[in-house]
């Protein structure tokens, strides 16, 4: 694995004080925090910064890191020497959030009291995962295969990272941000305690044409000028299939046509909105240009009239 230079990541000197490290972390955390920065790669940067701080803020971990890191450059191939952590006691830190480099040095497998089973009965931890679905899945229901990573205590007392696949049924009518709770699918309990739960948070993939707002679904529907002006029937896609829409005469750009109850299904289903987008036919052929000129002459229409120009 690659060596990570945590001092460089935080932009501090190797002999930086605890305060300097804290200050550096705060600035970078605010810059890259995924809730605050929408830049691509911000989350990756944030994870890196958080990991660097996790090590450098803790005197024990920092000392161990300094000792092991002498002479390495960032990105250089790295292997921890055997037994290197003898004498260091580490605690805390969630697994699955840190790089391989961190796990090799400070992962939960290290520093655990080995030997002596000890009677310790506890409920397993809950797991959280996000599940990405499409809008259509919320209309019809779906099955999704999720890959979960969990840290588990093996029989030998060692903590291992285990990856498993589960198939989950996504019911009809789920909404953005809702949680599905799968009882007993979290971490196994210890000493005979019950297993924790698995929580899946629903997130919608951005859709090419639909926008979701709670239970309501929006679609920008292109229409021809005469369809908007004269009204009439047009076909519109919806996540549940194609429907016939009646456009009232004299509909303007941006007018919303509501189809009640055609949003995300529920006891009280959401609504589907077609937002009219008037699109001009191109004026590239002589015939098209002639027709436009005729409209200009015969309709005497000035859209800037109210501006006095």
């Amino acid at each position, binding site marked *: 694995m690659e060596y990570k230079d945590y001092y460089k990541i935080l932009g501090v000197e190797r002999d930086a004080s605890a305060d300097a490290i*804290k200050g550096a*972390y*705060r600035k970078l*955390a*605010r810059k890259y*925090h995924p*809730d605050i920065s929408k830049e691509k790669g911000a989350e990756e940067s*944030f994870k890196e910064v*958080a990991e660097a701080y996790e090590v450098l803020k803790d005197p024990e971990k920092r000392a161990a890191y300094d000792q092991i890191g002498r002479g390495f450059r960032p990105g250089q191939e790295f292997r921890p020497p055997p037994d290197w952590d003898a004498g260091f006691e580490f605690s805390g830190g969630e697994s699955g959030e840190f790089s391989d480099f961190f796990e090799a040095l400070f992962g939960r497998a290290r520093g655990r009291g080995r030997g002596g089973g000890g009677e310790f009965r506890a*409920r397993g*931890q*809950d797991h*959280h995962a996000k599940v990405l679905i499409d809008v259509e899945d919320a209309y019809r229901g779906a*099955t999704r295969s999720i890959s979960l990573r969990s840290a588990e205590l093996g029989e030998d007392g060692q903590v291992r990272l285990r990856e*498993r696949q*589960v*198939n*989950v*049924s996504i*019911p009809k009518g*789920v909404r953005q*941000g*809702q*949680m*599905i*709770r*799968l*009882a007993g*699918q979290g971490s196994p309990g210890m000493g005979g305690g019950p297993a*924790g*739960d*698995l*929580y*899946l*948070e629903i997130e919608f993939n951005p859709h090419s044409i639909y*926008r979701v*707002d*709670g239970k309501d679904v*929006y679609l*920008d529907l292109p229409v021809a000028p005469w369809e908007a002006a004269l009204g009439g029937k047009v076909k519109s896609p919806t996540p549940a299939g194609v429907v016939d829409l009646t456009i009232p005469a004299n509909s303007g750009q*941006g007018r919303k046509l509501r189809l009640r109850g055609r949003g995300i299904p529920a006891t009280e289903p959401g609504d589907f*909105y077609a*937002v009219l*987008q008037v699109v001009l036919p191109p004026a590239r052929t002589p015939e098209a240009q002639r027709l436009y000129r005729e409209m200009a002459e015969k309709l005497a229409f000035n859209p800037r009239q109210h501006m006095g120009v």
Partner: protein
Amino acid sequence: MAGSAKEILSGIVVDEVSTVTIEDITRFCAVRREKIVDLIAEGIIEPEGQRPEEWRFSGRVLSRAKRAIRLESELDINLGAAAIILDLLDQIDELRAALERSGR
């Protein structure tokens, strides 16, 4: 794992209907009960019910509580500041949704 059945698991949608307990939130966030009580004191999550023993929450509080706790630790701020940030983020979400609805 060889031989494991490819079964399909079903769960319960944790909904707006208030059924979540403090216990559930504590386990979900993997923190002590006191921390959840602090969240309630800051108004970050709000229970229904008169007495603490009767308190129940909507399913939405799970991710909100977790988010507040993460902000507190990730940004190295206190819960009061985290509460303000969450409110501002809500406002941003509302504005984004309004933009979406207006077709822009």
